[in-house]
């Protein structure tokens, strides 16, 4: 079902996106960036640096926030901004949930926009990332 921009209001919750980033996804991300810090894919290297296991890269997580917003928005608009404040590491092969809610709906420069509060929640129920996004609706309101 496509999103109706006219019906979006403050307090609306985005559908929770359930993910479990695995080592394959992390390695593909490293290849995309052509950056290969060993603690992203080598468990022993991660442990040697005091980490409990291989980590999900922070920049990958900002893209996952973007995806959650983009999938909610569909054809009803576009993502103007997304920000991720990293609070604690996420390990590969562990479930995470991406949650979000509409914090504000407003008009700016003739366009209808919404600010979104986002979070990545780990399996302990703790926020590993606090996020924020701005979207602009393109369909007639």
């Amino acid at each position: 079902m496509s999103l109706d921009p006219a019906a979006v209001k403050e307090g609306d919750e985005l559908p929770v996106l359930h993910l479990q980033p695995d080592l394959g996804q992390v390695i593909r991300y490293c290849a995309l960036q052509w950056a290969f810090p060993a603690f992203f894919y080598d468990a022993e290297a991660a442990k040697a640096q005091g980490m409990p296991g291989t980590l999900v890269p922070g920049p990958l997580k900002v893209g996952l926030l973007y995806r959650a917003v983009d999938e909610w928005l569909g054809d009803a608009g576009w993502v103007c901004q997304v920000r991720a404040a990293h609070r604690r590491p996420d390990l590969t092969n562990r479930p995470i949930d991406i949650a979000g809610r509409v914090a504000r709906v407003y008009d700016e420069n003739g366009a209808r926009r919404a600010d979104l509060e986002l979070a990545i929640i780990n399996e302990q129920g703790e926020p590993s990332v606090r996020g924020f996004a701005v979207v602009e609706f393109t369909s007639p309101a």
Partner: protein
Amino acid sequence: MPEASLLTDEVRAIVGLETPMGRVRVTPKAYRRALEVYTGRIPRNHPAPGEPVPGYVLAALDSEADTPAMPSLLPNSLLISNEWQFERPLRMGEEFESVYSVVAINERFGGRFGYSIDFRAEVIFKDADGNPVARSGRTMTQYSAAEARDGGDA
């Protein structure tokens, strides 16, 4: 904590300096790879030239050149935030001039890291007229784990 600020004039001078990173292009390959990384889907097709692409394709454009290294002022560093900003949707086939700069350096006293220094840097993607279309920013903090509360861990 150091007896004097580590933010010398030499360090502050790097703020605002622009480093050209070369031209980048939104290609079908960049689209396919980014889509697979962020969604796990392998697309059969790609948008036609001029059609919008998801903003996470930016991550595939980021890697066209190596960004300059930050000055190393403290022994440990940690990524604390990432941000993407778009003036409009990216479109298949368009080319950008990418430019790297450090946009802010701030020192902080106290908190879980003790004395720390935040470096905020970004790559700006400009169109043929020099107008910014997108920005990819990140903030790294440098700190001394020996002085941080809980070693700086979350």
